[in-house]
Every structure is written in C-alpha cells, then in structure tokens.
C-alpha cells in the first residue's frame, strides 16, 4: 500500500496529496460505517456477556502484542490489485481505504485490531465506537502516508523491530484505554460524602459531621447547613429545624422556615419535600404555610430518602415482607408503585424525567440499576458482591447430593453497601457505605457513567 500511494509522487506533490487524501478519506469512511454500525448495535443490546467477551478479547490482544506473538486470526483476502491499473489512482486508493477501514481485507499488523470492533460493540455508544473507528483509521493511514511521503516502501519489512515496538506501544495504549475506561466508569467523587443530588453540573452532597457541599464545575463550596438538595433552579439545606431554600446560582435565600424534625430534603422549582421521622411531607414553595402528607410508614416499615423531579416524588418503602419504590405526583395526588420485590431490597431511588435510578440488593449481588420509570428492562450500571456469603450446602462429612445453595457461583461477600443515589443526563451517583466498629458507617460518593 505504501508503494501504491507513493507512486503518486511521480505526478507531483499535488497528485500525491490528492491520492493520500483519497486513501485517508476511504479509511475514515470505511471505519465510520463499520464502527458506527457496531456502536448503534451496542446501544440496543445491553449484555454483560458482551462486555466480558470484549474485555477478554482486549486482554488477549494486549498479551499477544506485548509478547510479540504471531497475529491470529488473519484475513487472507487482499485488496483487488487490478484496481490500481484500471482506475485513476485516487479513486483506487479511496476504495482501498474503504476496504481497509472497514477491516474487511488484508493482514493486520497487530492483534489489537481485533479488540477494537469488540470494544466498539461492547461500549454501547455510537459516538464512542465511532471515535474508536476513527482512531483505527488514523492508525492505519499514518504509517502508510508517512512512509509513502518519504519513499520508504520497504522500511517496515527491512526493520521489523519498528513493527515490534509499534505492537508494544499498541498493547500499552489498549491497556491504558481499558484502565481509563474503568476509572471513568466508576470514580470517587468525594469521601466521606453521601446523599447526593444533582442538576446539570451542580452536585450537592452531605459530609457527615461537617455539613452540606455544592460542587459546580469542580469548584466545591460548603453550604451553611446539612442534607443539601438541588432541584430545578433551587438548592435547599437545613440547620436543625431551620430550612432554607435558595437560588442555586447565587445561594441567595428565597424561603426560610422552621420544620421540626426535617432530615432529608428534596426540592424542585415548585415543591419542597422532606422526610421527618416516619413521614414524608410536601409543601408548595408558593405557600409555605401549608404542607401535606405524602406517606407515613407503619411501625415495622421504613421510608427512604425522597427524591423529586418536577412534580414527582419517589421514595423506597421497606418491610420484612418486601420492599417497593413508589412515585407520587404531588400536584394531583396520583401514586404508583413503580418497582416491587418480595425477596430483594429496593433502595433510595432518584429520578430524571422518564428514567429511574435505584439500588437493588439481592441474595447474590448489589446492583445500581437504571430503567424506565414506568417499568421495563433495567440496566445494571454498577455492581458489588452480595452482603453475605453462603455455606457449602451440606454438613461436613456428608455428600453434596441434595444440597441447594443460593448463588450459582460461591460469592465473595462484601461489607460495602450501596446506598443513596442521584441521576444526571450523563452520570449516575451512588453512595457506598463502609461499616466501622459499633455498626456505624462511612459514606463514599462515587460517579458511574450512564453509558
């Protein structure tokens, strides 16, 4: 390919530039078509198996390229040689680029080439997959164009150590990309910190024993109170029973009142919601003199922290007979149980438009789930092991025949507990509680990409 592109140099710099551009454009288009399609497919298919398979392929590619193993598999189908004789060179090279960019023809110099389509599919993002594809096209175009411009057609064949170094570099890049992806997938925002709420770039949380914080574009500001909540254009906090609702941009107080026992707050442009004791109550911001009961827990039940989006309040209700998430429209009073589990614990929902984020703790895992508010298939954004292990299922010295263990694979339990959540357009936030002595817990706030 270097020789074919380099042949254009005989017709002058302009002809070479045109040929090189055609080759690059063909590569870019081919990669865009294939990786764009993979990305779109990945957006519709949410499968953990797919992600595990892609990571396995990537790991194999990293090992293969780092160790300089023979690249397998290879495509033996080459680009049609006659095109360079029967077509104008730019046209032939555009078509060659199209085939190479699509990954349909010719040998690949590094195993990483096979990991890229797998990762593009598993990423579940058309834009992300497209970026991988364009990077792939760039990686294929640059060596050809640079060597063709310098007239070094046989450079790679004569100096294989260059290719060896390139493969090692590719392996390192792929490894870095995977690590960076993991870091981006779930990163710590603040610790100790919990009970997040978020609107756009504004993220509020509570630091136990210190107070509420508001982070805007990475700039952290301590608020003059506890249990902060952001919603609409407002932010709310409380200092004991003194509750303040302020403008989110200036923090200038708009409503100040006394609410006995207020613990957890949620706010929108029209409503203030709080949990106190066994009740969740709502109050219109236009008339702070009246409030209404949203729900009251029975003696053996427990209510979660309320979350508010527009007129809709969501909360969890937990009992020994089951747990459920309820959405209440505080404007018209309609309420709907949006999730229910008899053998798992559903916790701390948050809401953004039609999307519901919540924690589901079951016997074999703890999951941060994102799904449609109205019900349907949830996606697991983040997962921790279960909170308890299991025994062998049979007594020592006895046969295993007849045993029945709860999890198919012996779980390695964790003491970390998924807790409160918040949801933005791009990111899901969740608090992780770590138990300490005496049953107390320390929260850590982490961010998980919604993709």
């Amino acid at each position, binding site marked *: 390919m270097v020789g074919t592109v380099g042949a254009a140099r005989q017709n002058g710099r302009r002809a070479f530039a045109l040929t090189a551009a055609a080759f690059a454009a063909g590569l870019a288009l081919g990669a865009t078509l294939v990786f764009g399609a993979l990305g779109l497919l990945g957006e519709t298919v949410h499968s953990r198996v797919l992600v595990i398979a892609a990571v396995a392929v990537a790991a194999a590619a990293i090992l293969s390229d780092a160790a300089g193993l023979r690249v397998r598999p290879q495509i033996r189908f080459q680009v049609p040689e006659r095109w360079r004789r029967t077509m104008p060179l730019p046209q032939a090279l555009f078509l060659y680029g199209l085939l190479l960019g699509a990954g349909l023809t010719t040998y690949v110099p590094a195993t990483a080439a096979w990991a890229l389509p797998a990762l593009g599919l598993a990423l579940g993002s058309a834009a992300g997959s497209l970026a991988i594809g364009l990077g792939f096209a760039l990686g294929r175009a640059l060596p050809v164009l640079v060597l063709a411009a310098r007239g070094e057609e046989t450079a790679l064949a004569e100096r294989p150590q260059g290719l060896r170094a390139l493969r090692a570099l590719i392996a390192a890049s792929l490894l870095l990309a995977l690590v960076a992806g993991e870091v981006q997938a779930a990163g710590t925002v603040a610790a100790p910190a919990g009970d997040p709420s978020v609107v756009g770039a504004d993220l509020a949380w509570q630091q136990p024993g210190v107070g509420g914080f508001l982070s805007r574009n990475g700039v952290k500001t301590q608020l003059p109170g506890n249990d902060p909540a952001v919603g609409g254009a407002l932010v709310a906090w409380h200092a004991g029973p003194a509750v303040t609702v302020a403008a989110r941009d200036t923090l200038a107080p708009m409503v100040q009142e006394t609410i006995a026992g207020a613990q957890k707050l949620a706010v929108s442009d029209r409503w203030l919601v709080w949990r106190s004791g066994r009740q969740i109550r709502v109050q219109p911001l236009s008339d702070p003199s009246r409030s209404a009961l949203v729900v009251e827990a029975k003696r053996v039940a427990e209510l979660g922290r309320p979350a508010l989006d527009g007129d809709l309040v969501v909360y969890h209700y937990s009992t020994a007979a089951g747990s459920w998430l309820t959405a209440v429209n505080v404007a018209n009073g309609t309420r709907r149980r949006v999730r229910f589990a008899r053998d798992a614990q559903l916790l701390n929902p948050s809401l953004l438009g039609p999307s519901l984020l919540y924690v589901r703790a079951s016997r074999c895992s703890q999951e941060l789930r994102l799904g449609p508010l109205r019900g349907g298939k949830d996606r697991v954004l983040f997962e921790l092991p279960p909170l308890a292990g299991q025994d062998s299922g049979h007594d020592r010295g*006895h046969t295993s025949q*007849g045993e029945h263990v709860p999890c198919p694979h012996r779980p390695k339990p964790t003491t970390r507990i998924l807790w409160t959540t918040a949801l933005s357009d791009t990111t899901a936030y969740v608090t992780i509680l770590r138990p300490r002595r005496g049953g107390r*817990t320390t929260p850590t706030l982490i961010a998980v990409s919604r993709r």
Partner: protein
Amino acid sequence: MRELSLSEAVAASTSRRGFLARAGRLLLGVSGGGFLVAALRAQKAEAYHFCGHIYTTGSCPHPVGLPRIDRNGFPLRAVDGKPVDDLGRQIDAVGRPVDPRGDLLRDPDGNPLPLAPRTRVCTAAGREFGFRPQIDGAWYRCCNGHVRKLVDCCGSVRNRINGDAALTGYCYSGRRVFCVMYYDTKIKC
C-alpha cells in the same frame, strides 16, 4: 458400638423412620456383629447431605445454604444459628441488619439501615417453584449432641425440588415432600 443415649433413643422412637432404623440396627447387631454395623453407620453419615436426613429429597432454598430454620420456619445461619434475612445478612430480633459483633448497622445519620425481606423457608420455596407450601409433619434425630427436628416442606406437587418424583414422607392429604429443612432444638441427646 456407641450406646444410644436416652434422649437419642426417645427422639428416634418418636418417628416411624426412627423405629425402623432402630429395628434394623438391632437385626444387624444380632446377625452381623459390630464391625458391619460400624461400617454401615459410616456409610449412613455420608449418604445424605446433612445430619439426620435419611432420604434423597434436596434442601429447600435457603439464604445461606444449609436449610436451618427457627421454630417458626424462618431462616437461621447453620453454622451458628443466628437469624438471617433473605439477603443472608445477620439480623437482630426485629429484622434489622447487624454487624458480626451484633451491633446494629446504621446509616451515616445514625438511623438503623432498613430491613430487608425475611421469608419463611418453605414459603420461599413455594413462591419460587409455584406451589402452595405447607408444613405437615416432622421426624427427629440426634445431631451434634442435640435433637434435630427434620421438617418436610409439602405441597401438591408431582416432583420434588431436584426434579425426581415427589414422595409422601411426612406430608398428608395427598401432599408430597418438595424439599426438606431442619430445626436444631436445645435438647441434648
């Protein structure tokens, strides 16, 4: 051959299977001698998946594994008899999760963490496998020095939990054994 203690003898004699076991042991003792009895005892210890169980019906689904229950049918952790919820966590008397030292787990505000569901083991089996569960009868054995009550989880089922044909066992009114559980009493034997 170890002598049966009084309580073991009482426990064994309280059930049909206990009687048969005792009679069989007696016959073998008379005809075959102590060596053979000891060999069969060892086989018996390994033939079923938990002590006292004498048939091949599998355990009921349990949050921890071994189907140990309390006297009301709720799950206990087999190794220490601590109560657990459906998530397998150790809990206090009202169902709230506690840490390994028994301290109540609390959120960062100091409130107890919420309860998780806790379901009777036989009820959970009926729910998971789609039958109406019922506990009809039980039998007793001596296990680890204490009398163990072995409980059948019954239902109007044709097959037991492992898919084989279900047997009558200690189930009545046409019901059959779907799976088994046990309750360890404090009575020494």
